[in-house]
């Protein structure tokens, strides 16, 4: 019985709501028809004429949310979804300018890119979306927005504050990001933010889905799928039916719990055991083959999880710091290090280590993978060379001498200690 009353109340209030909505809509239709596109008249009409409701208020590590709502009849409806959590996105612009042919070499960077961003477009546009997907890696987000007629729906990333750095050859050598250029105006910021959306989310499938069903009376329904591994926290959902008509954003919370952890810098949440076991396996294998695990670990990490390559490179590197330091300590105890040689070459390597991390953010993930592919081929060659008979024979002799010297060194260290 109680259920019946609940549903009655819900149904009544929904009906009342819709009546008010359509009533307000009818009132404001008039000025539009009369052809007075005053800003004051359009604004309230816009915010009031589109409604949106979600069937849930929270999710556990992603899931599907049903979106329903109403919009002025006869208009295509777009649904914009973004995470409140913000991450970093950067893009190095080295494409030659279409008019002047000059390469700008400007690094665009923002710390305010939503960790998740998607625009749901009407179902009928699936064909156009497939065309965008067919373009492959060279697709353009701004062109896709135009093709899908979704420019009005694009709002959240456009507000991200973008910094511009003029990179110079000298600056790269010194290892600086370059000169900070003056802030861009709103229009330019919006345009550049679209490029950063592509840089961050990479594929059209991440930022578009064609599943909004619009009925002739303006009622619409859509399914929003938030992937597992998305950022926790609040997500905002907003329906847009043209430039002057949009709903207030509705909030839904995505919760995650252990073993899922959210890497705030990477903007990805993942199962704790995934990277843990992978690192363990690769590091063991790395020790066995006599090469650090980073070679295999880094490309696997960027391939398996949606992690930015900058974060992977910057976080894997320090994991070997301590094993290297303890190795040096052990060798130095028995005086098995030539400090003169190590420091001389080390100074040259410090210089390289100063420049390298700067270059990481100038390349895209695809370039990262491409270069890594060639590095691995060279490494595979080195590994194979170490199994050839000529190398083995030489190595056997070398290892024998190494053991002999090490024994000598250990003995003299012990003697000194006992003295």
């Amino acid at each position, binding site marked *: 019985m109680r259920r019946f009353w609940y549903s009655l109340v819900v149904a009544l209030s929904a009906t009342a709501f819709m009546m008010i909505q359509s009533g307000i809509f009818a009132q404001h239709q008039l000025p539009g028809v009369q052809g007075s596109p005053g800003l004051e008249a359009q604004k309230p009409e816009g915010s009031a004429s589109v409604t949106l409701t979600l069937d849930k208020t929270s999710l556990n590590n992603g899931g599907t949310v049903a979106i329903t709502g109403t919009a002025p009849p006869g208009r295509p409806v777009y649904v914009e979804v973004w995470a409140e959590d913000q991450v970093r996105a950067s893009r190095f612009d080295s494409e030659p300018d279409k008019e002047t042919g000059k390469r700008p070499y400007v690094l665009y960077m923002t710390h305010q890119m939503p960790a998740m961003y998607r625009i749901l477009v009407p179902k009928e546009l699936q064909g156009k979306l497939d065309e965008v997907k067919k373009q492959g890696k060279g697709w353009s987000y701004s062109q896709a927005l135009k093709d899908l007629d979704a420019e009005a729906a694009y709002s959240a990333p456009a507000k991200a504050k973008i910094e511009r750095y003029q990179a110079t050859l000298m600056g790269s050598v010194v290892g600086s990001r370059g000169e900070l250029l003056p802030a861009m105006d709103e229009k330019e910021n919006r345009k550049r933010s679209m490029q950063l959306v592509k840089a961050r989310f990479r594929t059209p499938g991440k930022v578009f889905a064609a599943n909004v069903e619009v009925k002739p009376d303006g009622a619409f329904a859509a399914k929003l799928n938030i992937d597992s591994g998305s950022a926790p926290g609040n997500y905002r959902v907003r329906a847009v039916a043209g430039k002057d008509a949009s709903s207030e954003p509705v909030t839904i919370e995505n919760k995650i719990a252990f073993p899922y952890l959210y890497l705030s810098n990477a903007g990805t949440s993942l199962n704790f055991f995934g990277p843990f076991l992978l690192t363990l396996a690769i*590091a063991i294998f790395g020790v*066995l083959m006599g090469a650090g695990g980073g070679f295999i670990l880094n490309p696997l990490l960027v391939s398996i999880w949606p992690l930015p390559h900058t974060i992977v490179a910057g976080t894997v590197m320090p994991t070997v710091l301590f094993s290297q330091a303890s190795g040096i300590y052990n060798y130095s105890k028995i005086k098995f290090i030539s400090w003169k040689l190590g420091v001389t070459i080390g100074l*040259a390597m410090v210089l390289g280590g100063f420049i390298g991390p700067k270059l990481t953010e100038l390349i895209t993930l695809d370039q990262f993978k491409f270069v890594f592919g060639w590095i691995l081929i060279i490494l595979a060659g080195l590994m194979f060379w170490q199994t050839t008979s000529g190398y083995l024979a030489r190595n056997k002799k070398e290892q024998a001498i190494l053991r002999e010297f090490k024994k000598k060194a250990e003995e003299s260290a012990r003697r000194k200690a006992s003295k």
Partner: protein
Amino acid sequence: MVIEFWGVQFKVNVLLGCIGGFLIAVVSSMFGFGGGPFMVPLMTVGLGLPMYVVVGSSLLAIFFNTLMGTARHYQFGNFDLLFFLIMFPAAILAGFIAPQIAKRVSPLVVKRIAAAGLLILAGNLLGLY
């Protein structure tokens, strides 16, 4: 440059060592791996030093690079603490487990498997399949 190591003197081509070390450092800090497997051949084959001189000294040289690379990545905000805390214990644990396994497997077999595995992974990265 002449270095002395346990009573034996070696002539080292510093220019080659430094240029090679610099290039290895740029690439390894850019892509976030240790440069060991490239440094050792550079010093043994390139500089003609015997293995017993190279093992400790190459580690020292690489440590400079790792330290600097880490600091710079941190400066550019490429470091994720939680991610580090997931991987670091695994790397330490591997350091204890690996020597136990190493006694039982032939390094020759491991290296051949590694070479094959690296080629497969490289093919994937280069988009060959």
